[in-house]
């Protein structure tokens, strides 16, 4: 008993000491506790020594993970965040706001959803992000986010040391968390000004990143503007003290990754360890199981505590799945090099959002893949702007068994890079949302990837003729279960007819904003008859959807659980009721802006069908 306690307390002490050292390594002003101490000491006037406070709206939106609107539009797109607010303090579903592509948990319950990764730190909630550049770098005193519809989604605000407008190459790019919190839901959908207490920054910034999570939202959250308040001169903090480390600090929100490539303090020690005490009594698999619950930074820290635990923490079996997305801000090429020896058996890798501003290069990524990619089955590379044609070629060569590839919002990837994907003949899930893929490359992929089950071509604007794509799918990809054709403008009833006839296993079909589909051609009714397995059908903003279409869906598609018919004038409450009666599994129905279905009808139907979330958005 006592030796065990001694061992554990020694172990704990080592971890504690590690924390202490990292505390002093970080910037002196980084700890919020120190700042609070200092501010209390110096008084409320606080340390603003330079001129007055500068208030800025965003000058430019430089990056984002998704948006609702069309790529060259100013309706519901992220670019609306630049400049002064257009809508605030009004609240409602307005075109002049910034809206993300998804909300709630609906997309997680679809066949196209990616399975979650293990080891996701509990403090990482972010699902979407946007980055804003301001005119002048300041030391921030406040950040205000003007939310005009269903507020509460902001979960993290970060600031970067890089000036995106400066011509000089940066010496070091750092991201610091100004504030982080849990996803919440405001009591009403009313607009609000969200201004959390932010940390003091040790460097001036004009580049902010806002991360959101709308899982708790009843509808799309919408943002109008972001205001950065700050001072030009570094605020003086009197009476700075060394931060006191206590037990509470160990669970501090900020997660500093200690994936360093240098020290292995216990390797090459010279000493021989003859025993590990009680640890030797525990079966190897048990320690592996315990260690499998640690997050990645903790795993790396634990590896530095003793030789036995280093062996456990470096065991490739701990790295079958690896999610590096939560650490996007600090992950570098060097981190990949350090992880390489452990990742020989890697099957699932999530590097979405990493490589921000040069921290990861294509070369670094390719080297990593060449060592660790041979068993890869799933690769998430959403918003990875370091990717280029060379990386795609390496992926296609080193990961022959790849089944899942996510390139969502890799909008800087050149069209010719996509042609390499055709070599991945085992692909089952492919996400190309908001990429520049062109028709030839896509048709080539569809020809050779006959196993495709989940395909996302949302907002792929470089494809000229979606009818040809649909035709190819119907011939080559008959196992297709989910297809996202959001905003695929050129699809007509011919393409839809072929698609429905050929891909009979379809469970999920998103035809949102495909305005060229005309209900009068009978295409929706034909589709309903062909696809009895349909569970999700989005016909968002197709103004021709009518009662007959809903009647046919009610008759042929009993498994429907998500339906969106936003914006049609041709659907009556009666046929909506018939649909609700015929489809017992319905969970989500969006009838926003359907002029025949007013709030009273929605209330009546909600009472009759309490398990269905009937959504009715509005502009007033």
């Amino acid at each position, binding site marked *: 008993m006592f030796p065990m306690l001694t061992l554990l307390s020694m172990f704990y002490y080592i971890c504690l000491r590690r924390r202490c050292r990292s505390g002093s390594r970080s910037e002196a002003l980084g700890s919020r506790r120190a700042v609070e101490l200092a501010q209390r000491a110096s008084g409320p006037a606080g340390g603003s020594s330079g001129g007055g406070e500068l208030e800025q709206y965003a000058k430019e939106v430089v990056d984002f993970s998704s948006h609702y609107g069309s790529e060259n539009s*100013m309706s519901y797109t992220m670019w609306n965040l630049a400049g002064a607010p257009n809508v605030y303090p009004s609240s409602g579903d307005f075109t002049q706001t910034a809206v993300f592509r998804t909300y709630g948990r609906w997309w997680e319950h679809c066949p196209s959803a990616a399975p979650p990764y293990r080891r996701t730190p509990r403090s990482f909630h972010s699902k979407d992000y946007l980055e804003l550049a301001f005119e002048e770098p300041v030391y921030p005193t406040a950040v205000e986010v003007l939310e005009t519809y269903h507020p509460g989604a902001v979960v993290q605000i970060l600031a970067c040391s890089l000036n995106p407008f400066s011509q000089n190459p940066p010496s070091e790019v750092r991201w610091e968390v100004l504030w982080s919190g849990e996803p919440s839901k405001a009591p009403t959908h009313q607009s609000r000004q969200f201004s959390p207490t932010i940390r003091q920054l040790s460097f001036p910034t004009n580049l902010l990143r806002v991360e959101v999570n709308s899982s708790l939202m009843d509808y799309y959250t919408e943002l109008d503007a972001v205001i950065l308040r700050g001072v030009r001169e570094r605020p003086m903090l009197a009476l700075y003290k060394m931060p006191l480390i206590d037990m509470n600090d160990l669970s501090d929100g900020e997660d500093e990754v200690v994936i360093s490539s240098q020290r292995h303090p216990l390797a090459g020690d010279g000493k021989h360890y003859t025993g590990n005490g009680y640890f030797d009594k525990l079966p190897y698999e048990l320690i592996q199981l315990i260690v499998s619950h640690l997050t990645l930074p903790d795993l790396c820290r634990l590896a530095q505590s003793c030789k036995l635990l280093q062996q456990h923490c470096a065991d490739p079996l701990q790295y079958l799945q690896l999610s590096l997305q939560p650490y996007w801000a600090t992950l570098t090429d060097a981190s990949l090099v350090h992880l390489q020896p452990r990742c020989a058996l890697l099957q699932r890798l999530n590097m979405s959002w990493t490589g921000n501003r040069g921290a990861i290069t294509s070369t670094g990524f390719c080297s990593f893949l060449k060592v660790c990619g041979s068993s890869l089955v799933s690769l998430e590379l959403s918003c990875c702007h370091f990717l280029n044609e060379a990386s795609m070629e390496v992926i296609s060569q080193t990961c022959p068994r790849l089944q899942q590839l996510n390139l969502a919002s890799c909008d800087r990837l050149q069209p010719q890079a996509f042609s390499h994907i055709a070599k991945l003949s085992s692909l089952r899930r492919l996400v190309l949302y908001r990429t520049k893929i062109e028709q030839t490359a896509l048709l080539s992929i569809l020809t050779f990837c006959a196993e495709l089950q989940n395909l996302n071509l949302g907002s792929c604007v470089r494809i000229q003729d979606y009818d040809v794509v649909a035709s190819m799918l119907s011939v080559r990809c008959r196992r297709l279960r989910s297809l996202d054709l959001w905003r695929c403008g050129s699809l007509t009833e011919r393409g839809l007819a072929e698609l429905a006839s050929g891909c009979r296993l379809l469970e999920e079909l998103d035809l949102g904003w495909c305005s060229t589909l005309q209900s009068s051609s009978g295409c929706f009714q034909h589709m309903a008859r062909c696809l009895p397995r349909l569970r999700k059908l989005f016909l968002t903003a197709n103004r021709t959807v009518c009662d007959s279409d809903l009647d046919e869906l009610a008759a042929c598609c009993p498994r429907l659980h998500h339906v969106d018919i936003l914006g049609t004038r041709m659907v009556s409450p009666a046929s909506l009721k018939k649909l609700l009666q015929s489809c017992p599994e319905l969970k989500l129905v969006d009838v926003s802006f359907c002029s025949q279905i007013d709030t009273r009808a929605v209330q009546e139907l909600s009472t009759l069908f309490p398990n269905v979330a009937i959504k009715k958005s509005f502009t007033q």
Partner: protein
Amino acid sequence: QRPLIHALAVSVLPSGVADGVGGWRDYGVDPSQFSATLMKTCERLVREGRFTPSNPVGILNSAYYELLQNKVPLLGSSTACIVVLDQQRHRLHTCNLGDSGFLVVRGGEVVHRSDEQQHYFNTPFQLSIAPPGAEGVVLSDSPEAADSSSFDVQLGDIILTATDGLFDNMPDYMILQELKKLKNSNYDSIQQTARSIAEQAHELAYDPNYMSPFAQFACDNGLNVRGGKPDDITVLLSIVAEYTD
């Protein structure tokens, strides 16, 4: 009816009018909603700098596209006339779709004017979004069908942009008479003149014996009518003047 005054510190000054085409009330649609939204969208495009001064058709194109991106199912149709004054280069870029239009008056004479675009009598070219099924019945012209022109302007030039309510009721010489009364280029005078033009046109519109330009045109086409044409009247007036603080 509010005139636009050339007194802003921007190097490019766009302005425009749009006229909702009637007949939509039968579909339960307010005909002014489409034209108002169209112009608000143009205004937003301009404010955010999403336009090229020398290409006003581009503004129309983008605005029409944005109307289709609205979740709200907009319906209706409208003419449009947009003029963009490039102050630095002293050039006016215009585009006109339908029977609204503009005049440029220099030294008491009309030196430039737009042409009416009509499919047939009283049926102007128009941008429209039709209800489903009615696409074959409702006229829908592309923004590309607009007439565009560019020309130099001089200090003292008066630019008048108006809907057909003005031109159908007031011939050029009457408009010029009113414009002669413009003494100087301050806000109040211009406001006054624009108002008086609009009011006069409004009066003439309800005069059953007056031979309005509209009546004249109808007669030329074999329809024996007299009197003015009651209609909504919008007049925008601007003067190319030196910028003073």
